[in-house]
């Protein structure tokens, strides 16, 4: 009897130890794996079981996952969701300890920081094989690619809105002629507006104003030039719900005089009549006259591990894959996508990432979070 | 022997008292009617005995077995009480044929198929509805539906049969016919019948005992003729009998043993009761059935003909006597001109005297009108 009891106790101890051993966190695994070679990752990934689950707020993540799955023979489920939905799902699934994603590809740096990273939902991982090719600043959280939204206009008819200064957009003749996806409908658009209120961009906007009109800007009630531009720009905008639709509509023969600020890569869609469109920054590259002080904005798409991943090594392998040339193919075949890996050049005909970065407003999550409510309340006035 | 005993049965719905402290003994093989105006608690009583309603207080025994007791916490479900129930609206199942309607209950009692078939056929024959066996209830007339309902109720041979105004949806002629059938069935089936009706004629013609209720209270529980001849109070007197009993208000002048001197219709009269009259106040009501108030030349009560209502076998004559309207019944077919002066006399020893205050009967006897 005694022996039986001690045996049972021993067994119990072993049982207790097993989950403790298994409970090594995804973060620890990721840290340890940062020095692993590609082969080691593959070996570990193939040893894992179950379906590999990917969430992404880009439709092409599914294509990438399909190719990845074909390459390694790993069954996957890919879901293309809105960024806000992904953040909601992550928090409910991880807090509720239910099975969710293994890996997530997502935009909106501010929410990434304040929701996913602050609460430990997502874990960073930089594959050793690409570390050298990714800029230091883009490594934590790891940026898989950059996406740009830029001024694109209809080039038909007499009144082509070929702007050279963003203040032109605040003039009365642009009323109702600018299309922009509502900042309410997509966070990155809101983030862009918030960024305009910082010192750097409000300063640049003030200078641009002076350059255009030859006089100092009169701020009136506005805290700075950024606020003034936001107010007058949004006042002239009509809001859409989808960048694809906006691209399609601006490209119509009937849309003469219209200009939009939307995702460049939407020009790939068959329903967009690209011959009717002119991309401001491309024209600037040809003529040498850039749009002052920016020709749109750019935001990163991050690739991270989910902290409740059940296939963490597969997720790491997939991140490595996405950072490579093959993994970037679904995006790389059209303009408007720029890999975080410096080795991968943009599509021919597109501009290099550095050129874009110089002429676009970039996200700064810390500034956005600190000033979000203020700008949101302000912007809210023009959404009604 | 299925006798039914109710002890202090009370049923309250919230604050409303539907049945108030009812005691009732229903003898084996009797045909009891629960009679009263709508809302008097008769249906509730029936449903409580059948087990479809749970009493708030009291005790119910069927065949010596306590089927309900609030005190002891006994409540036997309806199907264990061995009773049959015939519903006012027949409650035939519209999606089943006549055969299925009758057989369904038997199947449920786990009877053998063969036995069910023979029993159903027996019932169909008893109620003369063999030709409808394959029909659905909607394809039958009201009377035929009623027969099916009876057949369905009788099929399991319940010891006690409850009927809730089963004839109220039939026309006058059919009702008459079904009454005859029911009375015959009662003697054929050898079971106890409890029958709810608001039709006093039905109660009079069918039952061995009538239980007359009003506002949840038992008014009188007696054989029909006793109820008719010796109503216990004004309510019973008025409810039973058609045409209604004459009620003549009277002032009590003098009360001596079983002799009461009254002033009524402007005259003095002497009421001679069989027994001593007790509990009579200053005001009384004299109750005279129309047949005891015949038209008689030289009768003491003088009046004028208001209208004459002949039915063929007898004639009801309405007579005004001062402010009072009196009803008299004359055998045969007579017609009096309107406003003709006429005289009536109060005959027999079955006149009733009620105390006006309480409404209770205080004596039965004969009346002599002076001067």
């Amino acid at each position, binding site marked *: 009897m005694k022996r039986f009891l001690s045996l049972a106790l021993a067994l119990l101890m072993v049982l207790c130890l097993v989950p403790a051993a298994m409970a090594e966190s995804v973060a620890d695994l990721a840290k340890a794996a940062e020095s692993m070679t590609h082969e080691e990752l593959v070996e570990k990934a193939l040893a894992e079981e179950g*379906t590999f689950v990917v969430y992404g707020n880009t439709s092409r993540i599914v294509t990438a996952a399909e190719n990845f799955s074909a390459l390694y023979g790993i069954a996957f489920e890919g879901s293309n969701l809105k960024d806000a939905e992904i953040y909601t799902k992550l928090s409910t699934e991880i807090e509720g300890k239910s099975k969710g994603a293994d890996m997530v590809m997502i935009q909106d740096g501010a929410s990434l920081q304040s929701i996913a990273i602050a609460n430990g939902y997502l874990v960073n991982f930089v594959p050793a094989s690409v570390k050298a090719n990714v800029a230091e600043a883009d490594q934590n959280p790891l940026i898989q690619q950059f996406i740009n939204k830029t001024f694109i206009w209809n080039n038909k008819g007499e009144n082509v809105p070929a702007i050279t200064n963003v203040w032109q957009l605040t003039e009365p003749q642009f009323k109702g002629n600018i299309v922009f996806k509502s900042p309410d409908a997509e966070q990155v658009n809101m983030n862009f507006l918030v960024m305009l209120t910082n010192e750097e961009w409000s300063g640049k906007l003030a200078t641009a104003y002076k350059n255009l009109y030859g006089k100092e800007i009169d701020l009136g009630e506005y805290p700075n030039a950024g606020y003034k531009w936001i107010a007058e720009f949004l006042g002239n905008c009509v809001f859409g719900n989808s960048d694809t639709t906006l691209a399609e509509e601006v490209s119509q023969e*009937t*849309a003469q005089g*219209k200009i939009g600020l939307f995702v460049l890569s939407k020009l790939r869609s068959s*329903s967009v009549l690209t011959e009717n469109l002119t991309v401001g920054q491309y024209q600037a590259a040809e003529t040498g006259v850039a749009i002052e002080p920016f020709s749109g904005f750019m935001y990163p798409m991050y690739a991270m591990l989910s902290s409740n991943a059940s296939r963490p090594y597969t997720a790491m392998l997939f991140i490595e894959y996405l950072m490579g040339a093959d993994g970037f193919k679904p995006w790389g075949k059209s303009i408007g996508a720029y890999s975080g890996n410096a080795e991968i050049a943009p599509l021919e005909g597109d501009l290099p990432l550095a050129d874009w970065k110089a002429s676009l407003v970039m996200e700064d999550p810390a500034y956005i979070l600190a000033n979000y409510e203020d700008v949101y309340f302000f912007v809210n006035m023009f959404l009604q | 022997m299925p006798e039914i005993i109710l002890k202090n049965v009370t049923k309250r719905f919230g604050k409303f008292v539907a049945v108030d402290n009812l005691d009732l003994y229903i003898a084996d093989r009797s045909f009891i009617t629960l009679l009263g105006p709508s809302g008097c608690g008769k249906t509730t009583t029936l449903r409580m005995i059948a087990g479809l309603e749970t009493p708030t207080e009291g005790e119910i025994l069927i065949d010596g077995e306590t089927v309900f007791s609030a005190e002891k916490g006994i409540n036997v479900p309806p199907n264990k009480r061995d009773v049959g129930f015939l*519903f006012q609206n027949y409650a035939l199942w519209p*999606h089943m044929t006549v055969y299925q309607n009758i057989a369904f209950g038997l199947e449920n009692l786990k009877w053998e198929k063969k036995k069910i078939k023979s029993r159903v056929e027996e019932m169909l024959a008893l109620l003369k509805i063999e030709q409808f066996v394959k029909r659905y209830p909607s394809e039958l007339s009201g009377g035929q539906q009623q027969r099916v309902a009876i057949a369905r109720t009788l099929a399991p041979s319940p010891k006690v049969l409850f009927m809730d105004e089963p004839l109220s949806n039939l026309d006058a002629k059919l009702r008459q016919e079904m009454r005859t059938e029911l009375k015959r069935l009662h003697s054929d089936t050898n079971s106890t019948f409890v029958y709810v009706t608001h039709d006093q004629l039905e109660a009079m013609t069918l039952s061995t005992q009538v239980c007359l209720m009003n506002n949840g209270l038992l008014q009188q529980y007696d054989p029909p003729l006793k109820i008719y001849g010796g109503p216990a109070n004004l309510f019973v007197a008025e409810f039973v009998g058609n045409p209604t009993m004459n009620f003549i208000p009277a002032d009590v002048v003098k009360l001596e043993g079983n002799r009461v001197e009254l002033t009524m219709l402007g005259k003095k009269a002497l009421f001679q009761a069989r027994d001593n009259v007790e509990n009579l106040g200053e005001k009384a009501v004299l109750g005279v059935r129309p047949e005891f108030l015949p038209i008689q030349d030289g009768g003491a009560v003088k009046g004028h003909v208001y209208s004459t209502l002949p039915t063929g076998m007898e004639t009801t004559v309405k007579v005004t006597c001062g402010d009072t309207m009196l009803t008299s019944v004359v055998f045969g077919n007579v017609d009096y001109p309107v406003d003709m002066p006429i005289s009536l006399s109060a005959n027999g020893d079955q006149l009733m005297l009620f105390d006006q205050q309480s409404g209770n009967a205080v004596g039965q006897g004969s009346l002599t009108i002076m001067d």
Partner: protein
Amino acid sequence: MLNPFSARQRARVRAFFGKPANIILVAFCAVLSVLTLYPLILLLLETVTVHAGKEVTSIKLPRGSFTLYSLKNIFATSRFNYSQLTFYQPLFNTLAVALTASLIAILFGGGVAWLITRTNLKCKKFISSVFVFPYIMPAWTLATFWATFFKNVNVGAGTSNGIMAAVFGIYMPEWFVYGYFPISLVLGLHYAPFAYILIGGILRNMDANLEEAATILKTRRWRMMMRITLPIVKPALLSTLLLVFSSAMSAYSVPIFLGSPVRYYVLSTKMMSLINNFPGQGYIIAAVMIIFGVSILAVNQKITGSRKSYTTVTGKSSQISLVNLRGGNWPIAIILTVLMILVAVVPLITFALESVIIKAGDYSLSNMTLDFWIGRNLNYLDQGDSTGILLSAKVLKALGYSLLLAITCSVVAGTSGVLVGYGIVKRRGSKLSTLVSNLSFFPYLMPSLAFGAIYLAMSTRVPGLQGFAVLALIGSVKYLPFASRSGVNAMLQLSGEIEEAAVIVGVPWYKRMIRILFPIQKSSFLSGYLLPMVSCMRELSLFVLLVPTSNTLLTTMLMQYSEKGWAQFGNAINLMIIIVVLLVNFLVNKVTGASIDKGVGG
């Protein structure tokens, strides 16, 4: 002294639970409290909680702490006119839209109900059968149709012309295309069948003697209408008004399609835009909507409570004297028929058309293809999917998942509806019965989106309540009001004797339900299954937050596609949903006789 309860008390409890109706009511009371009141409490808690993300950085309190900050923001922030723009203006818009929509529904639905039941109108059969279409179809059907049909370069985003401008050259003004007017009109048309069914039911059952008596007294027609017909249907009118009002108030898809292009916000769309950034504020708006709903329910109950006393439903008098429309007959019939075709048929044709054109706005044959339906290798289109929807494993899987969910919800809600209906009617008048009746109606008042958000929060606290389970649960609860309504209606039409006749011979309860009650009221009960099923198939906002990633529903897929701007696939899927819904409705109706109107019918 072992047992503190006397035999009497124990017997009473036993007698109470001896009745299946009581067991049902107690069980549903408990379950529904958990499924409706608990979410409500959670929702109220969320309004005073700091949420992750921007709330943490703006409020500067840790996640989960108590705060009145969101309440202050929503109700009392004058900075940048915030409260006015975020709450008061949308609230005003909501009330304006809901009121106008319910009036349109009543005038149109009630008017047609009168024409159908009380006049010798031509084409009655066609009009009455097509009239319920808009109610069966998803509400966004008409909204998207309206936008695609009337949009033009002069209004809204104004970059392309819809059919009206492109084909007929007519440019409608902005107020006509977007905002208050079309939202109210589309919602009004969507709910008109609801009014038609409720008011038509009363008119049909109304004892014609009442009108005949007036006719004999030589009352003039209009006077009769004003003094007799209207007062009799007034409770139904008011009840319809309130029900449509509360439905229109929480409608989301119509204002998002027709409001957002011109920045016209209502509470539901505002809630949706807030819930991602400032969930606390979003939940407050949801709570406000529920408070409105509950007050409306209370008013409605007061009105319908007194209804019984007025409507005489004898069903005896069958000869209703029909009003002769004389010369007006054909014109009215033709106008209605054309209107019905416009509202119910043209949208379908439009969707079909939009799903076959390659480049938007070009309706020439050379620009058409069936690839979006049956094509393969469509990567050249770059529209998200590489195969036509009828061949796409993804779409077919979503269709299967939608159907599975709809059937599950319909079975659960429908069966619960039968049971609840039984319990409520059997114990009519008791407090418990009223309580369960209210509880089972409560989900109707919960704005779908907020309800979904709370269930999402709930699913994190309850193990196993994820994926399909939570979808099926919320769908069943949300559509229980429809099912329990038809359950109650069906039971009310059955006299208690029908069941008692079986009780007497000892038929057990389950057998009475299966063999007696259900078969007799089959079509009414089944209608209680049909409505949840149809609603589930077309539901979006309720499920959007809860849909598991591995399985999409047709509706969430549709939303995704329309957000991505994949119009052709979107239109094709939209058409697929509508056809499936109509088909289900038609088949169930033909096979069992159940119909939507029986389910809603009062």
